[in-house]
């Protein structure tokens, strides 16, 4: 007689451990594949899982087997042309297993690579592996206006909704034991005397009666002890613990003047997107503010930021000033972690660059966690780059700049900007 069991509700993730071990073992392969994927992806689907391709020979598990050469025999089905004694040209590449009859293998290619998928979280983990947000700890607790209630033991006073029943009853029980101890001891002695008297040979009724009376009185007294008293109540105690701010705002500042082509904007967009994904992993909420500028600066939405075209000269300082104003109005530095990313082709109105430097030094760097500047151009640097270079020298922890030539530079540049630095991430 067979037993039929429904196992469908049993766990189905039995292979998870093995899968993780596999990923761990081939970590550097996976990482390389992720980096390759990020370079080739279209802008919109950076945020998703990915196919990972690893050469199959790198993961082979060896076992003793015969190589080519020697004397082999093969048997195949479906003969329709051969006779005994027919000789066939040895197929190129040797007469290994299975190729004896010379059939072409059009599935060969896909046997060489091992392909599997990782999900979004895993993808991002490999993508941002070894990277860190600079100055993440800089938000000092005293600035913090966010509090979280934390449990902190028990108190004897509080509001009824915090009443801890178990603790209260335990206290009541202890009080009752403590207060009644002496009386109960007397009671026990009296009861024993009474029992002895009852079983003894010549009971004295009068004595027994008085004993009973005494016991009754004592019992009454004990009963008068309150079951629970105000004194017994215990309440859960909560204290306010200051919370380091877990909110971040990211300012995307981009030059949209005529010299910025769509291609350069696309590259900038990729860079901003990577930064956004990275911030999203470290903070609960990330706000993004888009600021576009030519000779005027304006806050806009994402679509306009990347697609609207305008012409005109370039004055970077206006965008920086606008950034500063927005920070003042909407993002008090005590509550927000502020990141500023600026992308440009390096063009700026000649005399404006020094103004930029002073705005950054005086107004922006003191309030923001990190200022990243990427210059996307394949031409020579202009004065903005050299101005910024002096800032980067004096504030290496908070200001960084990189140069992007092509699509392929974006991810490596990003990594360079955020790679882990020994000991520099703790704030001043």
């Amino acid at each position, binding site marked *: 007689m*067979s037993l039929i069991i429904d196992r469908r509700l*049993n766990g189905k993730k039995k292979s998870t451990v*093995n899968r993780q071990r596999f990923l761990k073992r081939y970590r550097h392969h996976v990482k390389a594949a992720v980096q390759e994927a990020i370079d080739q992806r279209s802008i919109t689907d950076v945020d998703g899982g990915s196919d990972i391709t690893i050469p199959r020979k790198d993961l082979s598990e*060896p076992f003793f087997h015969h*190589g080519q*050469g020697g004397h082999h025999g093969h*048997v195949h089905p479906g003969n329709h042309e051969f006779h*005994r004694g027919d000789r066939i040209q*040895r197929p190129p590449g040797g007469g290994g297993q299975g190729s004896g009859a010379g059939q072409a293998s059009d599935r060969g290619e896909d046997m060489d690579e091992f392909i599997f*998928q990782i999900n979004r979280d895993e993808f991002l983990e490999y993508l941002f592996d070894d990277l860190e947000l600079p100055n993440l700890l800089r938000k000092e607790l005293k600035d913090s206006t966010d509090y979280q209630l934390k449990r902190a033991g028990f108190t004897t006073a509080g509001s009824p909704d915090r009443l801890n029943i178990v603790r209260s009853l335990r206290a009541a029980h202890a009080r009752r034991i403590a207060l009644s101890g002496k009386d109960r001891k007397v009671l026990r002695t009296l009861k024993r005397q009474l029992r002895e008297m009852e079983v003894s040979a010549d009971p004295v009724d009068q004595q027994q009666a008085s004993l009973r009376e005494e016991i009754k009185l004592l019992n009454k007294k004990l009963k008068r002890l309150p079951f629970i008293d105000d004194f017994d109540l215990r309440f859960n105690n909560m204290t306010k613990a200051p919370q380091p701010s877990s909110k971040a705002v990211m300012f995307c500042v981009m030059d949209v003047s005529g010299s910025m082509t769509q291609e350069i904007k696309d590259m900038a967009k990729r860079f901003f997107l990577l930064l956004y994904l990275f911030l999203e992993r470290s903070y609960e909420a990330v706000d993004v503010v888009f600021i576009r500028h030519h000779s005027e600066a304006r806050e806009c939405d994402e679509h306009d930021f990347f697609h609207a075209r305008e012409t005109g000269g370039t004055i970077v300082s206006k965008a920086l000033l606008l950034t500063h104003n927005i920070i003042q109005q909407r993002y008090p530095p005590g509550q927000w972690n502020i990141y500023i990313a600026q992308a440009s082709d390096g063009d700026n109105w000649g005399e404006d660059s020094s103004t930029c430097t002073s705005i950054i030094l005086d107004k922006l760097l003191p309030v923001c966690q990190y200022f990243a500047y990427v210059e996307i151009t394949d031409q020579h640097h202009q004065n903005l780059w050299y101005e910024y270079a002096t800032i980067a020298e004096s504030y290496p922890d908070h200001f960084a700049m990189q140069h992007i030539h092509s699509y392929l530079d974006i991810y490596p540049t990003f990594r360079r900007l955020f790679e882990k630095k020994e000991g520099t991430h703790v704030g001043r």
Partner: protein
Amino acid sequence: MLAAEAPKRHTIRREKPLSTGSEWTFELLDLYDREFARLADKFRLDTYPNQIEVISSEQMLDAYSSVGMPLMYNHWSYGKTFLNNQQNYQRGRMGLAYEIVINSNPCIAYLMEENTMPMQALVIAHACYGHNSFFKGNYLFRQWTDASAIIDYLLFAKHYIARCEEKHGVTVVEAILDACHALMNQGVNRYIRPAPVSAAQEQACSREREAYIQRNLNDLWRTIPVSEPPQLRQDERFPKDPEENLLYFIEKNAPLLETWQREIIRIVRKVAQYFYPQRQTQVMNEGWATFWHYHLMHEMYDEGLITEGFIMEFLHSHSSVVFQPAFDDPRYSGINPYTLGFNIFRDIRRICEQPTEEDREWFPDLAGSDWLDAVHFAMQNFKDEGFILQYLSPRVMRDMRLFSIEDNDINPYLEVDAIHDQQGYRQLRENLAALYNLGNREPNIQVYNVDVRGDRSLTLRHYLHQRRPLDRDSTHELLKHLHRLWGFDVKLDSVDQDNIIQYIFKTESNSKELVKVTSKKRVNR
């Protein structure tokens, strides 16, 4: 193929069909199982009790990935298999197997919930009565595996390895397992029957064994020269007789391993031994199960228990199971064991029931005898090699249009040395049987010597069969694994039938370089 089927005795269809829709329910599974059990009894299929488990496709993928066992220790290679299967399945490149069946007592068979009722019925017939009776009846399984103990043993193994990982770290345990897995095929006893595994005993013995092994090891290595002259000749080889089971030899004799490492080697060895019969009976096992699902379903149909639509769906699945593409078909990837086994078993029945002149000449004992006796005898007493040698008939060779190719590297061409004709039958049959001989297929590698008094290096011997050399890259990797287990240099000589060394592979303590010796030199036996 179906049209060629021998005509059936036409029984009157009097019963009402068990079901009409394609949806299955637990009640229906039970009903079908009862009917199959009744028919199996009629055909004398002796089985272990069945435990049928319904699982989802994800669970099937899980089960697939850990060599089909319901529980298994953790290893990255199972994760790799899992990812591979998952990818192939999701891309529709691979259908999941309809079933997995485990040689255990009770015999556990998995059904997938996505299957239709006819598929479930097919799987029950195939796994629960076909494979199950094979596990219980075939001599290899009877002698070499203990179906009642395997699940408990795997549980013991899983816990033991998990404990080792906790204690010594995953990476170290993984290194041992990698090495053992690589040598798994060289970790079985081919001739000496092993003691059956038992989890309880294992646990009880494992401590005793610890002490014993350590004592023996000390004896063996005590003879390391300290004051003796360094050039002392080693007269006797150790081991005295070559040892075919490399993992066993290492477990018992490797000087530097810790006890838990020996225990892990032992676990892998036991698992390898458990699967050894399955590797030798693939054609028979699948052929037998296919033969019986085919017959049991037809029997049901004849009794009117299943409908026309049901049998059509069954036949569709059946014919895709036994589909054999020709050698020049792009889908061709070798001979389909289901097809070959099914054809041979079906042909045994045909020879018994409707022998031709040719059959009387080739199978005088079989022709006209009771077919049920004949197939049971064939199932019980052979492994693939012998089964093909004994039962592959000219008719099957003709039907499958088999031909044999000789690939000798001293010739610049391949030669067709036998086809399905009068002169070729015997040669063809021998060639095909030889392909299923594990002894030919796998290199014959044995432990030859240990330099007990010298540098403790281990020498293995590969006995060349038909001049087939070892694959260089993988052998190189394997020697590294061996080196990891043994702890000292490892050398592998390939010798031909005259005991002349043809190739030498060895690890060097510093540079792990592969050395090939081209000059041939005589060595003493």
